């Protein structure tokens, strides 16, 4: 089980959405998204493919507009995010098209004048840390190297908000480590919103997590609290128990075989959960509560959602 050191999080909100809806012809990408990202958080937005993560991020970045609803970023309506407002926001996306004809050093030099807060020393530090080849064209770089160049260009001006859309996609573990290290160093002075499928990396990084499914936020909470309330429960009986039809809503993916019953408890409290087991299933020979990784929690949520559908 990973240990996360929590930073003090103030009550102010850096990102807020209010009933955000986005429709693309017949597809409802977002169905009333209500999201809050507190200042100083490293907020991971997770969810299955097609959940609406990238759509939500693009609306926040004013890359395109919402069908209805409202989004606020750094105290500003997201529709106003353009020009000078972007000097406070760093954005990196796996599928963003960089100017491939330009060398890395020229790319950084080109962006420098756009940002009054650009820090040359920090830029040099990032170049060293990420081992960027300054004399090569972006088109000649590997995918991982291009992501590092994009990240360096998004961190060098010390943005107040860093938005990362699938930054680890297709990258080897070493590159991921390098990116995470760079981000964590910036975490003291910035709020980070990151969407990713790479739950193992997210688990070591995020302070908050939001689970998006079919355009809606299923839950949004601090990582320790999330990890704390999920348990894999395994109950061994002397004989096969009678499983009642009505079970607590927090019990997910219940399965039984012979004398063993297993389920996922999503609102774990040792005393209360143990009492519920006794009341519903009877006395057991043994009960084990195993903490779950973020990946296991994600899979349980996804499969449970599919079952419900």
């Amino acid at each position, binding site marked *: 089980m990973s240990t996360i050191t929590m930073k003090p999080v103030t009550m102010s909100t850096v990102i807020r959405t209010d009933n955000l809806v986005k429709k693309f012809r017949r597809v409802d990408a977002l169905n009333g998204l209500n999201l809050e990202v507190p200042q100083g958080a490293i907020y991971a937005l997770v969810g299955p493919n097609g959940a609406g993560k990238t759509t939500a991020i*693009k609306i926040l*970045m004013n*890359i*395109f507009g919402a069908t209805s609803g409202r989004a606020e970023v750094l105290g500003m309506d997201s529709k106003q995010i*353009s*020009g*000078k*407002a*972007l*000097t406070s*926001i760093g*954005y990196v*996306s796996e*599928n*963003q*098209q*960089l*100017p491939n*004809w*330009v060398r890395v050093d*020229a790319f950084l030099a*080109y*962006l420098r*004048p*756009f*940002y009054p807060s650009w820090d040359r020393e920090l830029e040099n530090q990032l170049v060293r840390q990420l081992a960027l080849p300054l004399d090569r064209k972006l088109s000649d770089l590997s995918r991982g190297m291009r992501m590092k160049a*994009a990240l360096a260009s998004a961190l060098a001006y010390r943005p107040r908000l860093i938005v990362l859309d699938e930054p680890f996609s297709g990258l080897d573990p070493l590159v991921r480590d390098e990116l995470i290290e760079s981000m964590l160093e910036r975490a003291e002075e910035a709020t980070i919103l990151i969407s990713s499928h790479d739950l193992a990396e997210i688990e070591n990084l995020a302070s908050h997590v939001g689970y998006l499914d079919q355009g809606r936020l299923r839950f949004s909470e601090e990582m320790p609290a999330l990890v704390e309330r999920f348990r894999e429960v395994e109950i061994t009986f002397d004989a096969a128990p009678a499983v009642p039809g009505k079970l607590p809503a927090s019990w997910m993916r219940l399965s039984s075989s012979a004398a063993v019953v297993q389920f996922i408890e999503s609102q774990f409290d040792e005393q209360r959960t143990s009492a519920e087991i006794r009341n519903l299933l009877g006395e057991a020979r043994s009960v084990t509560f195993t903490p779950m990784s973020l990946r296991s929690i994600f899979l349980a949520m996804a499969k449970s959602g599919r079952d419900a559908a």
Partner: protein
Amino acid sequence: MKQIIHIFRKDVRHLWREIAASLALLAIYVWSEPATWGYPETARSSIAAFLTELLPISWWLLVVRVVQDESLVGDRQFWVTRPYEWKKLLAAKVLFIAAFVNVPLLIAQLSLLWLGGFPPTLARVTGILWMQLMWALVLLVLATLAAVTTGIGQMTLVMLGIGAYVALFSFLSDLLPQGVPRAEGIPNALVYAVPLAMCAGIAVWQYARRQTATARLALVGTALTPFLIGAATPHRFLLDRAYPEPAAMQLAPAQISFIPMNTPGNRSIYWQGTTRPEGLVVIQPELHVTGLAAHSMLLADGNRVEIEGPGGFRWDSGWGPDRLRLHDQEYFRFSIMLEPALYERLKDVPVKLRISFAMTDFDTQETHEIDVSEDEFPVKNLGLCGLSNHRWDITCRYALRLPGYIAATSATQSTCPGVDRVGSSEGAKNEIWQPAYESGPAEFGITPVHTINISMMNGTNKPLLCAGTPVRFTFPRETGRARTSVEIDGIQLSDYRRRDDTGVPAGTAR
């Protein structure tokens, strides 16, 4: 301003090859274009002709590449999440196009003027600036299209679509009521001005909002505006205003009367029109022009034919364009085109025919007589001229726009050996009329220097123009506009149907 220059410099660094190629082509064009001003055709003049087609393509490429370097279509461009200010981005692109298309073209045009023997005067510089404005409008359209397309491939498809649109527009324009162009300056200007203004608005909108679907829809709407303007143009009102009926007690600039068939007398009859449009019947009543003042020329800019038949039948052609030049005491056959069904209905019954003309009166007192020489010779108000190898052509080089002129010479005054000078009748005179270019202070194109061939062929293969042969150039000056008409009662159309099917050349005497 800093951001504008910063983006501009980036574009120069990225597109330096395209810039260099475009400038090189322009330089070669300036070097080769003067070779087209005389005979014979050389490799150099062929290069110029080729570059006349290639240069606009190179500018198109430059515009597309610079606009799409920060593409406005899609949501994956890196720059949309960077602190670009859209006004400065747009300004940087305008600066680039001005710096590498407009300014080099301006320099090239001034150079060609100088090479052509036309030093820059205020009027010529005004003409050059007009050409620059026209090119800026063309580039505006290209930039707008580049702003709503994803790449050169899609842009190419759009250009092909525009070609199809232009063809369709030409076809459909013929179906709309036409009016008389010289009476419709404002609507004619609006046909261009409105779509261009909309293009400018769409381009700004696209840079400000990047709403490509809306911008594309607006462009489709823009393409429809010429049709709407054409359909909404009040042709009759504009014509009545531009060509008024002569006021009471005031004579029309000329009287036109009808000469019934079989009227005796020796007359030279001018045949108006040469070809019969497919499927139409041509009726050609003979008309006579009188009352034209001395040193005057009439130009019929438009005509209208009305027929009244038995039982209250009425047919009206509406006003349509014409280009008929009339002289005093001239007899001419006026061509009326009728659908076969209409002709068949009316051919054998007496009908009332009313033919109206919208006419411009010109004063022709300003003349300039020159004796042709072997070397290049100036013609006042026109340009610099020279004899062709054939000796029946004069090739003139002029700046910016063509003035209207009449060039006339006579076989009796030719200094060429072997030319038949027997008989000094006016019939031996060769006269060529060239209407003026009327759309602004300069003709649209790359070069401000143009050539025109004045052919003075006299029906024989013998050269007519040699050193010393006088040629008189007359420059008609517009003095007024008016309408006049001729009414013909009881005419039987079948008596005036044109019989031959091959067409009769203008100027043929009966």
